[in-house]
């Protein structure tokens, strides 16, 4: 009786548990399906690329897009030009423009458009579509500022020729190849947006790119289908369908890759990448990125209003330890706020070294021989890397007698606190930064250290007329005389480093793991959020 009683209860438990288990392969493979009757062609299974990506959509509107959705936008939309990775034979790959020229003073740029290009909604690419797209970007893009200062008017010369008139000689080729605010959009969709600003947010797209959106399930998956009428045509080995699973967890992504559930991932635990270096099934890429870590000293408040104090603290940063602890050694010490590989980076820009003796000397000359002051440092609590290296700063400064209080805050709160009342804001603000397009002179340098009444990203609140003048001159000559421009930028950066308005920790490297059966992967530093251009990829399977 009792045995039966126990047995029946346990059996119920076991059956309930096991009933749901089974082999993981559930879908009937197409290859094992019964053959089709003679005379009826067997359907060819689609060639599917599977990717695990952390990126979600904050907007579907290509004009407003200024965030992680860039991972996908670059496969559905195209700019006039695409800037190639550093070291390429040609600086640009023509996309929707086949050629372009500038006037002698570089104030007029004329682009000749590719003929017979179709948007996914059937509309044709015309100069009018380009004009409307860029005007929309200038007026209300998330990255409207890339056009706003330089662009005066746009003229439609003929159906396939468009002319940009500028206020000053800006590098329009660079701007037109931006990851944000430079997509060319179907005029029909732009008209729909004019009537309903949330038109795209239903999950729509209207680009010319090689892939069209098939479906989107929030936080779950994005499915793309190849655009048969793509102007570039299609070749063997390219993918018909791209299935992106949105996976936030790095370890889950790694397990999916190793378990064969996906072909590509975008993020794995940093410490686990090394194992792939020697794995014969994968190619391992470690690449420079657009990203760097900077710190802002609050130059409005004593003692940080004293350059000697800032210099002393710059000498007290353990740069190599920060790189080791923060990014497991995958980085290089920054030379100013411009990341390596991006214009106008230069190895002629000075760096501080970790030198506590020098730091003490400088503090003594500034009137703080034993330190004796306190600072508060804020960082974005979402950022694991900043969380990892902030204590190193505290420990090192403590050796100078400087007490640092670390305040992790949500990024939005850190941002708001720094903007609302600068004079009473943080002493040190840690920031991960990247330029909007491939010009870190007019972006990183200008955005972070050029003084404006309402601080953009200038969270040092630093106001140095010499620096501002140098940056102005450099920006004005970027197109007309790049050598002069670079010299001015170098001078500006050395002034900035010397005055130590900020801390320049590290330029970050990223790792990509690509299975050997996938060919065509080409890392492009200029598009940091579009990790994979699907059109480039081919399978040998």
């Amino acid at each position, binding site marked *: 009786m009792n045995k039966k009683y126990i047995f029946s209860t346990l059996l119920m438990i076991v059956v309930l548990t096991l009933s749901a288990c089974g082999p993981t392969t559930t879908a009937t493979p197409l290859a094992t399906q019964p053959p089709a009757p003679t005379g009826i062609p067997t359907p060819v299974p689609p060639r599917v690329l599977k990717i695990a990506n952390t990126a979600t959509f904050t907007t579907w509107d290509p004009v407003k897009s200024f965030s992680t959705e860039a991972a996908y936008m670059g496969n559905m939309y195209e700019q006039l030009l695409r800037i190639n990775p550093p070291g390429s034979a040609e600086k640009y790959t023509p996309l929707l423009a086949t050629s372009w020229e500038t006037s002698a003073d570089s104030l007029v740029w004329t682009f000749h458009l590719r003929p017979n290009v179709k948007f996914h909604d059937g509309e044709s690419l015309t100069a009018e579509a380009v004009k409307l797209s860029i005007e929309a970007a200038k007026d209300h893009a998330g990255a409207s500022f890339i056009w706003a200062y330089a662009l005066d008017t746009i003229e439609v010369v003929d159906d396939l020729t468009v002319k940009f008139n500028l206020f000053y000689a800006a590098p329009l080729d660079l701007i037109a190849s931006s990851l944000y605010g430079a997509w060319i959009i179907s005029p029909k969709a732009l008209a729909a947006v004019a009537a309903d600003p949330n038109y795209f947010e239903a999950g729509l797209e209207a680009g010319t790119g090689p892939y069209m959106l098939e479906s989107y399930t929030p936080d779950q998956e994005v499915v793309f289908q190849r655009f048969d009428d793509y102007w570039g045509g299609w070749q063997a080995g390219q993918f018909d369908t791209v299935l992106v699973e949105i996976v936030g967890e790095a370890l889950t992504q790694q*397990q999916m890759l190793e378990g064969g559930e996906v072909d590509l991932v975008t993020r794995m635990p940093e410490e686990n990448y090394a194992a792939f270096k020697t794995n014969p099934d994968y190619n391992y890429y470690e690449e420079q990125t657009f990203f760097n870590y900077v710190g802002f000293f609050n130059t409005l408040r004593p003692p940080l209003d004293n350059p000697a104090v800032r210099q002393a603290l710059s000498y007290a940063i353990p740069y190599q330890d920060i790189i080791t602890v923060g990014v497991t050694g995958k980085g290089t010490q920054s030379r100013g706020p411009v990341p390596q590989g991006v214009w106008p980076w230069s190895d002629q820009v000075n760096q501080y070294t970790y030198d506590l003796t020098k730091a003490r000397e400088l503090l003594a000359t500034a009137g703080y021989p034993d330190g004796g002051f306190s600072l508060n440092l804020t960082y974005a609590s979402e950022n694991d890397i900043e969380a990892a290296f902030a204590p190193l700063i505290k420990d090192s400064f403590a050796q100078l007698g400087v007490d640092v209080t670390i305040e992790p805050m949500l990024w*939005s709160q850190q941002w708001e606190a720094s903007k609302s009342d600068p004079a009473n804001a943080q002493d040190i603000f840690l920031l991960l930064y990247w330029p909007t397009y491939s010009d870190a002179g007019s972006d990183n340098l200008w955005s972070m250290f050029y003084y404006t009444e309402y601080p953009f990203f200038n969270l040092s609140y630093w106001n140095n007329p010499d620096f501002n003048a140098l940056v102005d001159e450099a920006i004005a000559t970027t197109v007309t005389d790049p050598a002069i421009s670079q010299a001015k930028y170098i001078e500006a950066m050395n002034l900035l480093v010397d005055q130590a308005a900020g801390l320049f920790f590290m330029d970050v490297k990223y790792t990509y793991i690509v299975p050997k059966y996938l060919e065509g992967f080409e890392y492009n530093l200029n598009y940091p959020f579009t990790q994979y251009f699907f059109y480039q990829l081919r399978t040998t399977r």
Partner: protein
Amino acid sequence: MLRKLEFVLRRLLTSLFVLVGVSVITFFLSRVVPNNAAALYIGPRARPEDIQRVSIQLGLDKPLPVQYTIYMRDLLHGDLGTSIGTKRPVLQEILDRAPATLELLFTGMFLATMLGVPLGVLSARWQGKPLDVAVRAISIVGVSMPAFFLGLMLQIIFFRNLDWLPLAGRISNDLRFTNPLETITHFLVLDALLTRNWIALKDAAIHLVLPAITLAAYPIGLIARMTRAAMLEVLEQDYIRTARAYGIRDVIITYLYALKNAISPTLTVIGLTIAFALTGTFFVEIIFNWPGLGQFTVRSLLNIDYPAIMGITLFGAAAYVVINLVVDILQAWIDPRISLK
């Protein structure tokens, strides 16, 4: 019957007050957190005049009580506002994700009840014996093991080492090419049943196993312990001894007589645990990349997306209230000694 109806109506009215209270607290708390919602909405590069424009557009320039009144007015019209993060209606965001969360929640709690109650009964029936010790040990492990650790362990064992169960997600992506599932209710197991898509049914079911076990681990322990304690008390009652003296079969005494009287406190715990598990589901969802409300909630919190936070909180509070109401009614139905007053 009338008393029961009156009870339900009274509880519904009380619940309404609870929900209003929750809305007031959440609304004001989310607004006193130092941040600028308009600046968040428009992005970090916004110019001051753009932030001002968006402030007016979102009604943030008005006094807080006025903002709250507008929010509640819109809420009554089914409008929970627009998410700052996704720029989509919050209600739509919740409706898109809630089925996945609820499917996991119901499966996990079904599993917890189906395992927890029998384990508690067995444990009580064999008090002090090895079986009891084993069940108590399982309970303690279940209650004390963090979900993220258990989930990870299950993934390593059943996906990586044994390759028996899928790692993450709700359904295999391959199915879209071989056996696409037509969604009707957005509860995938139910949809697969309704459309008789057996391959999709099996696939959706095996995807549920690991997250459901992870979610159920804590409630199993809790329910087992609660059932055991209640059963021990009931099994000492005179009427049980009398039943045994009459030679009634042990299974009948235990499950029919004793369990019926012991289930009431367990039911209360189950109700509370379901409500608690709703938020626990969010963690499990992140571990198993389950496309429910979890990821959306975390993102909303990190971005101080206050319309989304409000919407999710109200959804959670409403679920809590409804579950507790159902439990109260069930208790009264099972145990007539409990008054509906």
